[in-house]
């Protein structure tokens, strides 16, 4: 049995209308570009996307939004996207905003087989509405449930045939958390290496969590805010 597949088209072949997807990345950093392109080509609709952000108008999840494939976004921050705003205000798109740490930890909870977590984020705010508030040691916490997703689509720097993954710099972000959290995990990597090339001590996502892996092509890796200095 091999986890190795040929490309993004193959990877997403069984994603259907109405699927719940997790998509890794923070802003445009560490997003699964190949799978997003394949999803746009395939045109599956009514998707629920769990992702920290929603891309920009012409890149990342923004491409799926433009193509009207997304029914609901579950995110912590959705700025930088005019089409998103239009769909939201017109009622075409549903949005659930979640504190970033809660978003991350609800992924981790799923990957760690914990049905729920307690977090203080959102206590006393509208995020707490309808949720259990519980006091531990004099501080209040909200009960937040682990996510349930059909597919996690993540982008890694390198991966091997066992599905072991490593990420580069802050392109790690939500990727290893989502990789643990869905029924099926699809990993696209910049470089596929032979088993044994990655040091077992420094694996970010152990292969047991990954069901499909392929080497992606033509990464654009767009920079959202290019900030530089002239100082040496």
């Amino acid at each position, binding site marked *: 049995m091999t986890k190795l597949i040929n490309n993004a088209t193959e990877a997403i072949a069984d994603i259907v209308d109405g699927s719940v997807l997790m998509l890794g990345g923070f802003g445009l950093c560490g997003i699964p570009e190949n799978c997003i392109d394949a999803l746009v080509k395939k045109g599956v609709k009514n998707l629920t996307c769990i992702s920290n952000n929603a891309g920009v108008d012409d890149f990342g999840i923004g491409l799926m939004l433009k193509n009207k494939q997304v029914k609901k976004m579950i995110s912590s921050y959705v700025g930088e996207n005019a089409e998103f705003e239009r769909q939201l205000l017109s009622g075409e798109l549903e949005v659930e905003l979640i504190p970033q740490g809660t978003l991350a930890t609800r992924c981790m909870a799923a990957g760690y087989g914990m049905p729920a977590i307690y977090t203080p984020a959102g206590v006393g705010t509208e995020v707490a509405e309808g949720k259990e508030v519980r006091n531990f040691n004099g501080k209040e916490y909200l009960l937040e449930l682990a996510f349930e997703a059909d597919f996690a689509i993540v982008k890694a720097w390198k991966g091997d045939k066992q599905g072991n993954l490593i990420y580069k710099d802050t392109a790690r972000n939500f990727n290893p958390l989502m990789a643990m959290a869905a029924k099926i995990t699809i990993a696209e990597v910049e470089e596929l290496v032979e088993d044994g090339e990655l040091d077992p001590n420094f694996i970010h996502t152990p292969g047991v969590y990954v069901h499909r892996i392929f080497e992606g092509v033509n990464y654009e890796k767009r920079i959202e805010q290019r900030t*530089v200095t002239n100082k040496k």
Partner: protein
Amino acid sequence: MLVILLYIFTLFFLHFLIMALNKFQIAQRIAQELKDGYYVNLGIGIPTLVANYIPADINVVLQSENGLLGMGPFPIEGEESADLINAGKQTITTLPGSSIFDSAMSFGMIRSGKINLTVLGAMEVSENGDIANWKIPGKMVKGMGGAMDLVASAKNIIVAMMHTNPAGESKLLKKCTLPLTGTNCVKKIVTDLAVIEITKEGFKLLERAPGIMIEEIIAKTNASLIVDGIIPEMDL
């Protein structure tokens, strides 16, 4: 030519009239709150500028909640990487001794109180330390990002903001009118006019911006303001 000179002269004159701090000076004042060995999370906007004023004789580690401890300066042109950004999505660098981790660990260390100081902007702060900085009803809501996690957990939270909104209304209130980001969490506010501590009794004036009268601060604070003894000017 004369018009331009007159314009420059007017600006110069206004500078003396309006003694309120600009955003760089607010950042400079907040930097005085940093202590050696602090781990600090700086929000987007004025808080980000605080990094430019860290005293040279102390060691402060900046956390970026997208997964980095030890955030360095912007990269030299040509060396920027799409894989290395801060929470404001700007290209940055690492430093010797930096570490990178996933978002769950990042907020884990925030939640467990390992970050000594959080600096963030606000639209409103109430006298009991409630903060509103993520949502204006009727306007497009972009989301709270990591702000709710930060304010719910950080041991020390300083708000950097203008004392009044563009309409001239106080952003320091008895009670916030906008949807809250967190409750009972802000410890200190540094505005263009003053440094204010949040005590059990409410807002307490600690320092005034150079040349700003206490009366002006009181007038622009829409809540009781405790003024106890002589209020020094900020030392910038």
